């Protein structure tokens, strides 16, 4: 945060406003990557601080979200190399999501999806989070991860299949069986797209 800025105060203000607007998404992406709330918020704050220090390297008008997510993701992988605890599940989140979900009849709650997500390899989890949760395109996800679009697609397909297997167990017909209960709010979010 102490790096001198070659930018104008106006450019810094624009950068700051973009950063503020992205905080909810940064926290969400970090939570999905880390599992735990405290570690995720530390990660998001670290990414914000690093982004501010490196703001001169951001080209205004380009994809700010992709640039920020790239910083956060890189910091995540740097951190998990030092700290293996970052894959724990946050029970506080599970409880709240369950409250939003309808009464369970047949099927699986959103909290089960969240738990299963933490069991996936990070490279599959991040693609599911970027595309499935944050609505990133294949192209944007590839830019954030730094890989080919085809790689994103294959990781997404493998991640979705692994997620369904973790949730439902093996299907005798070798077909994923995702019977997930989602609240009316969740369905409206999908329908609005």
């Amino acid at each position: 945060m102490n790096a001198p800025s070659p930018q104008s105060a106006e450019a810094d203000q624009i950068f700051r406003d973009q950063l503020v607007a992205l905080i909810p998404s940064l926290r969400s992406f970090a939570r999905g990557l880390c599992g735990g709330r405290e570690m995720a918020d530390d990660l998001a704050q670290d990414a914000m601080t690093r982004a501010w220090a490196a703001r001169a390297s951001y080209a205004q008008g380009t994809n700010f979200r992709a640039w920020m997510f790239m910083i956060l993701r890189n910091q995540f992988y740097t951190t998990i190399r030092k700290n293996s605890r970052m894959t724990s599940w946050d029970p506080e989140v599970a409880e709240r999501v369950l409250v939003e979900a309808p009464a369970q009849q047949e099927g699986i709650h959103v909290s089960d999806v969240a738990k299963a997500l933490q069991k996936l390899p990070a490279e599959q989890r991040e693609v599911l989070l970027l595309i499935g949760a944050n609505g990133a395109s294949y192209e944007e996800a590839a830019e954030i991860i730094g890989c080919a679009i085809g790689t994103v697609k294959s990781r997404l397909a493998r991640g979705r299949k692994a997620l369904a297997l973790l949730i439902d167990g093996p299907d005798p017909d070798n077909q994923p069986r995702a019977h997930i209960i989602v609240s009316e709010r969740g369905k409206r979010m999908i329908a609005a797209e």
Partner: protein
Amino acid sequence: MNTVNSDYDPVSAALKQMHEAVASEPVPDDFMRILDEIDAKIATAKSLQ
């Protein structure tokens, strides 16, 4: 209760609901402190222009 129809993707719906649950939380004070530091630097920069 919602039933899953042919054009409905329950995995995407679950992921989006997880995202929305976190994104709708109040932003913790720690984030505000970072922004306050940024605001102070911007104010200093403006005063020097």
